[in-house]
């Protein structure tokens, strides 16, 4: 069986398992929707008071927010196995079982669970996205759509990369470190505003270290016709989400290094 079909099998099993309790699924999804919609309330309230932020309008921030939320929701749904890797696999020694199977550890951890309840965050991001597009008054071309979808793909890859790095840390620390939340949840928080509102050091961090700016700020600014704000040539902007994929590739390299020096804690 090839890897893709096997992953499909994993997803089907995970889906069936979660649908054993449809009530819990619906309640948790609605809860996730409610918890994340709070972020959007904050944006709305601040714009109700201030009208604009450094010349950016509400609908533009809504689109930034929508794109980064959708990207994170996708990554969060896919990487449950990495998210709980420390307590669930390293601490218990269960990772040994993954290592003796003739499949890659990444595939097995991806297949651990597809978190269907993340549809709550996804829906919320899509609504913000729709609001942003609708009120922009821009005629959305296929080009702009392609730019946004590529941004989401790059963003999802970047967030997956962060979660893989978080899991890799567990090889050394055993426990999962909450600190990675600053880059996942905190990343969503930071990337919902265009980078030019931030101080220079923070902006550089979000471009060159954890390229959140490359997966949302540059392409979304281009789609909104605000390329002038970024200080980069316009043709380059839709391409920057590539750095999200690059980040994931590097993260997987580091993961492989971690796996090689893994020593079991199990008994």
């Amino acid at each position, binding site marked *: 069986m090839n890897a893709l079909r096997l992953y499909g099998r994993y997803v089907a099993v995970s889906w069936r398992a979660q649908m054993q309790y449809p009530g819990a699924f619906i309640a948790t999804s609605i809860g996730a929707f409610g918890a994340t919609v709070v972020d959007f309330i904050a944006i709305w*309230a601040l714009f109700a008071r201030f009208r604009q932020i450094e*010349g950016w309008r509400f609908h533009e921030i809504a689109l930034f927010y929508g794109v980064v939320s959708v990207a994170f929701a996708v990554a969060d749904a896919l990487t449950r196995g990495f998210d709980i890797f420390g307590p669930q696999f390293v601490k218990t020694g269960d990772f040994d079982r993954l290592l003796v199977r003739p499949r890659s550890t990444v595939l097995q951890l991806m297949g651990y669970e597809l978190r269907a309840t993340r549809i709550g965050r996804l829906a919320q991001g899509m609504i913000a996205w729709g609001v942003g597009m609708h009120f922009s008054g821009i005629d959305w071309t296929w080009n702009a759509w392609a730019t946004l979808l590529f941004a989401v793909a790059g963003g999802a890859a970047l967030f997956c990369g962060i979660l893989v790095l978080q899991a890799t840390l567990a090889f050394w620390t055993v426990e999962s470190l909450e600190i990675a939340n600053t880059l996942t949840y905190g990343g969503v928080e930071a990337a919902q505003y265009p980078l030019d*509102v931030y101080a220079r050091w923070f902006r550089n961090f979000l471009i060159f270290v954890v390229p959140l700016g490359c997966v949302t700020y540059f392409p979304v600014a281009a789609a909104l016709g605000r390329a002038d704000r970024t200080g980069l040539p316009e043709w380059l902007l839709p391409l920057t989400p590539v750095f999200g994929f690059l980040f994931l590739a590097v993260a997987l390299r580091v993961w492989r290094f971690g796996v090689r020096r893994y020593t079991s804690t199990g008994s």
Partner: protein
Amino acid sequence: MTTAIRPYQAVFRARFNLLLQYRAAALAGFGTQCWWGAIKIMVLAAFFRGAGSTPMTLKQAIDYIWLAQALLTLLPWSVDPDVARMVRSGDVGYDRLRPLDTYGFWYARAVARRTATPLLRAIPMVLTAGVVLPVLGASDWALSPPAGWNAALLFTVSLVLVVALAAAVATLMEIITVAALSERGVNMIMGGVIIVFSGNLVPLPLLPDWLQPFLQLQPLAGLLDTPLRIYSAHLVGAAAVTALVRQVLWVLVLVGIGRVAMARVMARLQAQGG
């Protein structure tokens, strides 16, 4: 008198010491709070740069955000996991057998939970925002000292009331958990409600003007908004005293509701487990 409160003191002390153990978690939490505070302040500063008149100054807003981060764990975000476990296992019955007033027992436990962890989290945050940042030359972004001796005194009083109020809300949430047999629903709803109405999400004075009368009257403003506005002299004189009185009233009301609710819930308690 002393013998009457001794068991509650003991509960408090045992709980306090237990909670002090989680140092690594506190460190990770501290990093997260710094990061979050920095983002929020940069965004607010950007909003303020293009604004005309605002209901509070940027300086006041910055103090508000740092203190909100420092006091983060003071708020009753979720039901005490130990209580949730007790409800699930049926051990809640044991608490009924103790020769103590159950409400007082749970309230004391909730107060301990609101003092030990928050202390560990607040001190490094205040030192970082108030001392390290100015030393590094970022005074514009730093937490300023209280607006005066009066403000400092009223702030301290208000903080004590925050603990009392937070424990009352937390105990009420625990009673609902007992009635519902699960903490999930309470946690799901209260997380969002508290982050909005305490002022943690956006300082309450910056929310729309037409909402202000309601925002100031509702109980959750006393969890965060009241002390923070007193600290930076956004609330002074009679207005500050009124806000303190409002905190006291809400503590009394919520403790009263909690007692009545507990009596009702416990009268038909179903202990799970077996």
